[in-house]
């Protein structure tokens, strides 16, 4: 399906952008508010051109947008693509949550303890 393939490609670009620790740090900084390249360069021990390159990657992934305020180019965090990426990860979280629900039940069974959460005790009268 074309629509799905596009979504997959976009996710690949997003994950590619997120795969770098400096870019994640930039996003974390932008979560506190918009910043110019100069402001972003300060906390990192890398050059302004290097920061600019990182910003281009983030912009291409749609993770930030850049706009001119006065004579400075300011970067803004864009939350939607980040959410798309985390939603994808959430499926795996759900997988483990379900697994662990079953592990929880299994551990109760082998310890033969009554359920701790109230209201379900009647289910066990037959055992």
């Amino acid at each position, binding site marked *: 399906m074309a629509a*799905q393939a596009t979504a*997959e490609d976009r*996710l*690949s*670009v997003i*994950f*590619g952008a*997120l*795969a770098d*620790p400096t870019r*994640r*740090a930039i996003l*974390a900084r932008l979560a506190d508010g918009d910043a110019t390249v100069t402001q972003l360069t300060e906390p990192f021990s890398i050059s302004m051109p290097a920061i600019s390159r990182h910003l281009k990657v983030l912009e291409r992934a749609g993770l930030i947008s850049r706009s001119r305020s006065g004579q400075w180019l300011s970067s803004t965090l864009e939350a939607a693509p980040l959410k798309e*990426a*985390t939603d*994808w*990860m959430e*499926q*795996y*979280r*759900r*997988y*483990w*949550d*379900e*697994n*662990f629900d*079953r*592990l*929880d*039940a*299994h*551990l*109760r069974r*082998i*310890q033969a*303890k009554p359920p*701790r959460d109230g209201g379900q005790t009647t289910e066990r009268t037959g055992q």
Partner: protein
Amino acid sequence: MTQAADTTYLEISRIFDAPRELVYRAFVDPDQLSEWFGPAGFSVPRESVDIDARVGGRKRFVMAKDENPADGHEINATFTEVIENEVLDSEGFVGTEGLRLQLRIELYDEPGGKTRLELRQGPYTPEFKTDAARGWESSFTKLDALLKLA
């Protein structure tokens, strides 16, 4: 820990009302693993489970769909760090497509004879976004449907 901010790793923390030794056994004892492992709609056939919990040892099993047991995912991993009742770290492949994932499980004592389990799995990188990952997504979609029926 710089890796804590790594969004390509899934991290889950959960407390179980059982001592550490019991939680650990549930992961390394094939009889037990086949009893509980797998999300709703899946089960792990006992005969598919092979676990040798030591560094370099294998961990293999099949997660078969209840609807169609021939359709499932094979987990094929190797233990990279094992500390009895504390740590199970493995690197393995999901399915035959060669998706490589690290899975680390750490167990900690909690008051009242409980155990905190810390899971870390990844990296969920762009290369992971393949047909097989799509296969996973479709099984989650089916899972959603099952859950709605329940």
